[in-house]
């Protein structure tokens, strides 16, 4: 039995599916322009004062109820993901704010070259837009989220000043930086959506607790429940939480008409809408489009190209951990991304691969985390246990290699034939293999990061050649392009097949670059919202 919430017309102008990074940005923008906006979010609001970083059980919570891996977290609002055929585990969070609740908030921008990889390097495809097309949207997004960082980075184009100075580097950070300088390799303080000083409504400065990946108790890390959503709600946008979408509905001519969903009480409902905006991430959006088959869209919604769910890109990560002879209290400060290097970002074919990678500088955490390995293997049990813990605690740092992962058709999301979520909706299944180019790129990064640790004086160096739990960045499964035969949406995020369906999450990426994608996702979401505001008055009721 499906209900429309009563008899009066509940049709909204824009129905957004997913309340994370992109859905929040679009909701704020569209509602400010007077569109009637509703968002369906399968998760719930979070209370920062209850984040597990303030619990004595935080080490256990990090691996269970607050794990970044939904297969380990297993909250009712999570959906399982079949990862049997993937060496990388996708990680995400379902709730208002989406994965920005648990992200590390590292916010570099794409380079201009990232939008032109076909032209420059002869691989993958060019984007149908340029860096310059979204530069203003990057700036707008920084203003709302709040960026700490500093101008002058020689690896990136000049840009407007950030809202705050960088987070402090610390003596431990300088240890790595001095090594990069000895090697004459680039480094620069990272851009972060973490407050280095109070910024935004009710948002404090970071107090360097380290556990940035467990939700921010101080509200210093920008998550969209704290940034965009208050604006959107103030403009009259509505969020329904605990609302799990079954399918986007269409009429006989193939136009989107809203969504069927299960509400928080388990009641089947329908939300009518004049347009639908997909913002459920690079796995969730592909899953829903494939679930939304109809007579008009027999292979899934907006899938005449056959590319929905194809070209899944993660950023493959390698992690190199070094142990230093000195105690540096490496648990103090954000775990991730206080600085980065893009020495090997741009293509140099003499290296034996195309595209490149970013180095992200990482710290460490407390004894429970260190004992269980941190970014490497657990410390041994038995006679050497105490000695090894003593060596690593406060002395361990890491460098992540985040590589540009090019799109490949066989890397994909489809519907699992057996696995379902708690409402019986088919779960996604991931098929992913690492390309030889990505492997070569990571190996190059490992070799040079090892050189950094040796130069810095590390006494032990551990290598994880491909991190399992590193699928933060979910991209490519509904790519944009000019040609409807080889792309799902156009350069505005509008589906080629359905003119009132838009996609604004990482699904639309043509290539992945070698940086964290969220500022780019949000910039594109703001751009799509502007397109709707300017060009789609027909969607207003």
């Amino acid at each position, binding site marked *: 039995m499906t209900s429309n919430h009563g008899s009066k017309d509940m049709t909204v102008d824009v129905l957004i599916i997913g309340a994370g990074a992109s859905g929040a940005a679009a909701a704020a923008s569209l509602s400010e322009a007077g569109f009637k906006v509703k968002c369906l979010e399968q998760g719930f609001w979070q209370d920062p004062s209850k984040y597990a970083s303030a619990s004595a059980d935080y080490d256990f919570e990090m691996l269970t109820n607050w794990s970044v891996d939904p297969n380990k977290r297993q909250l009712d609002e999570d959906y399982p993901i079949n990862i049997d055929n993937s060496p990388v585990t996708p990680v995400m969070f379902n709730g208002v704010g989406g994965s920005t609740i648990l992200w590390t908030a590292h916010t570099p921008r794409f380079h201009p070259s990232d939008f032109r990889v076909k032209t420059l390097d002869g691989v993958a495809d060019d984007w149908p837009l340029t860096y310059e097309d979204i530069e203003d949207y990057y700036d707008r997004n920084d203003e709302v989220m709040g960026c700490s960082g500093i101008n002058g980075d020689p690896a990136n184009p000049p840009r407007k000043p950030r809202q705050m100075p960088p987070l402090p580097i610390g003596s431990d950070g300088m240890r790595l930086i001095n090594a990069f300088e000895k090697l004459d390799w680039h480094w620069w*303080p990272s851009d972060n959506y973490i407050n280095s000083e109070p910024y935004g409504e009710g948002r404090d400065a970071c107090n360097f607790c380290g556990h940035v990946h467990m939700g921010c108790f*101080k509200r210093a890390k920008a998550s969209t429940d704290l940034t965009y959503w208050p604006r959107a709600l103030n403009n009259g946008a509505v969020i329904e939480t605990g609302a799990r979408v079954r399918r986007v509905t269409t009429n006989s001519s193939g136009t989107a008409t809203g969504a069927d969903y299960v509400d928080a009480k388990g009641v089947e409902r329908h939300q009518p809408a004049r347009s639908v905006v997909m913002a459920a991430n690079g796995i969730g959006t592909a899953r829903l489009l494939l679930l939304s088959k109809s007579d008009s869209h027999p292979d899934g919604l907006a899938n005449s190209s056959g590319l929905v769910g194809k070209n899944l890109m993660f950023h493959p990560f390698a992690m190199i951990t070094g142990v230093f002879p000195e105690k540096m209290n490496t648990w103090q400060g954000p775990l991730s991304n206080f600085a980065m290097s893009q020495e090997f970002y741009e293509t140099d074919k003499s290296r034996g691969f195309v595209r490149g990678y970013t180095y992200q500088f990482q710290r460490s955490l407390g004894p429970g985390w260190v*004992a269980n390995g941190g970014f490497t293997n657990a410390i041994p049990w038995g006679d050497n246990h105490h000695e090894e813990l003593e060596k690593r605690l406060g002395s361990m740092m890491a460098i992540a290699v985040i590589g540009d992962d090019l799109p490949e058709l066989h890397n994909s999301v489809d519907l699992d034939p057996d696995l379902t979520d708690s409402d019986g909706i088919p779960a996604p299944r991931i098929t992913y293999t690492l390309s030889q180019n990505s492997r070569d790129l990571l190996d190059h990064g490992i070799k040079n990061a090892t050189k950094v640790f040796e130069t810095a004086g590390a006494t032990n160096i551990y290598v994880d050649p491909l991190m399992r739990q590193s699928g933060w960045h979910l991209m490519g499964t509904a790519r944009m392009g000019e040609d409807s035969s080889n792309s799902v949406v156009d350069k505005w995020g509008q589906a080629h097949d359905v003119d009132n369906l838009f996609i604004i999450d990482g699904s639309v990426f043509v290539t992945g670059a070698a940086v964290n994608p969220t500022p780019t996702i949000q910039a594109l979401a703001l751009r799509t919202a502007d397109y709707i505001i300017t060009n789609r008055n027909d969607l207003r009721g």
Partner: protein
Amino acid sequence: MASQHSTQEQLLEAIMDRMIPAVGDLPSAGQMGLFDEIVRLAAKQKRFENLFHSAMAAFESNIPDFLTSSESVQDENLKTFELNNPEHFNTIRTIVYIVYYKDSRVHKRIGWDGNPPQPQGYEMDPWDESVLVNARKREPFWRKV
């Protein structure tokens, strides 16, 4: 039921004794009375609790005479279990390490303040722009399109 609980407690404590030996003025982990905390913590998530009980059951069925074996044989048994049942072994080791390193006696020995990360956080010296003196000397090298 009480005897089952007692058997599991004895078995886990024997495993813990081999995993984390005595150090300084601390006894080996199995002698620190941590079993109840392990059971409490594991029960905070059903998935983990099930994994924990499965791991213990697998250990017990694979190595039924662990409790009566010598320490050297126990070490060999543990190594074999770690090699052949890595997921079960990791589950046990993970919860043992977490509970051991949340104990205030251990904090005192290793010099850890013992507070959760929040709300205190930590102090850091403020951002110092002088660290960029060398990095700023480099000419722009991003690839122009």
